[in-house]
């Protein structure tokens, strides 16, 4: 007790600690940009000038046609469709047909999904349709290796991991350098009809 003689309690005023904390908080809030490197991934076809102009006849049954006009209205296999989310099921049925229905695809390998838009189609509608098509394929791939759709997309995003690469190849049926279950998505050049 005697040692405290002549001293009052030395205490640092900490009432402004809150201000400092708020300041830091605001600073980080402002500077942090939320990583937004996620989206629909797509591989473009090669340069049109490099492709030899060969007319390849694709049987009608192997084509799944989706057309979108400038008013964002859909035409799927020749019939108007209101609900975009129905496409997902239709594509799965079409690809997995394996020659049963003579109107539908022969094998998954030959099945082609064709998406044609107009120059006036909004990007929003295009993304919506593309999302359904990719969703259908990812669902089928995921099912083939027995994982969830989300897990499949994680696998496909990171192929540096050998395990992921193996599962990825298995899902897409890679055999002797060719895919048995490719995602044949043809995005045609937009038409100029609709104004």
């Amino acid at each position, binding site marked *: 007790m005697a040692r405290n*003689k*002549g001293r*009052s*309690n*030395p*205490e*640092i*005023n900490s*009432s*402004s600690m809150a*201000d*400092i904390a708020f*300041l830091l908080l605001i*600073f980080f809030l*402002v*500077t942090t*940009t939320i990583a*937004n*490197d*996620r*989206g*629909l*991934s*797509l*591989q*473009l*076809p*090669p*340069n*049109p*000038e490099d492709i030899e102009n060969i007319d390849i006849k694709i049987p009608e049954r192997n084509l799944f046609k989706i057309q979108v006009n400038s008013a964002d209205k859909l035409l799927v296999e020749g019939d108007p469709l209101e609900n975009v989310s129905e496409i997902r099921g239709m594509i799965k049925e079409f690809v997995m047909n394996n020659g049963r229905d003579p109107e539908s695809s022969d094998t998954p390998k030959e099945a082609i999904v064709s998406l044609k*838009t*107009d*120059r*006036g*189609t*909004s*990007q*929003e509608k*295009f*993304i*919506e349709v*593309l*999302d359904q098509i*990719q*969703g259908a394929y*990812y669902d089928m791939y995921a099912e083939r290796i027995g994982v969830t*759709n989300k897990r499949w*997309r*994680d696998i*496909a*995003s*990171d192929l*540096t991991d050998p395990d992921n690469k193996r599962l990825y190849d298995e899902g897409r049926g890679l055999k002797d350098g060719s895919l048995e279950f490719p995602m044949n998505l043809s995005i045609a*050049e*937009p038409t*100029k009809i609709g104004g």
Partner: protein
Amino acid sequence: MSKFKKKANTKQDIPTSALPDIIFMLLFFFMVTTVLREVTINVKQRIPDATQLRKLQRKSLVSYLYIGEPKKTDQWGSEPRVQANDVFIEPKDVILWVTAEKDKLNEVERDQITIAMKVDREAKRGLVADCELELRKANARKLLYTTIQELDE
């Protein structure tokens, strides 16, 4: 007891009245020095929603194209435009831009360049498709449409 109390009448509080000034000084310092974004986006960016998102692994290989209606419509008009870096470009200039972006990368990685397109939902397909055609010509064929995760029902 009174013996101890006697000497304790000097104030020992640290004056804190200057603290806010110090804090403000720090704040301004950081505000001035921090680079928030590399480019100022001059086009409207209402990014569409989607469910089947995939993540990009290597951020260094990604270059961004922004497409949408200009924010300053009185200066640039209301027709959607393509923005690369800080300037508006025409679709035919995309090849040059891709070449410039590829030059920034290591030689071995040049073919792996990924173009992330940040397209406004109101933008028309015609303009986007024109850019895609140029990308094909420039041999930058990995494409990503940036979208926001939509919640599954």
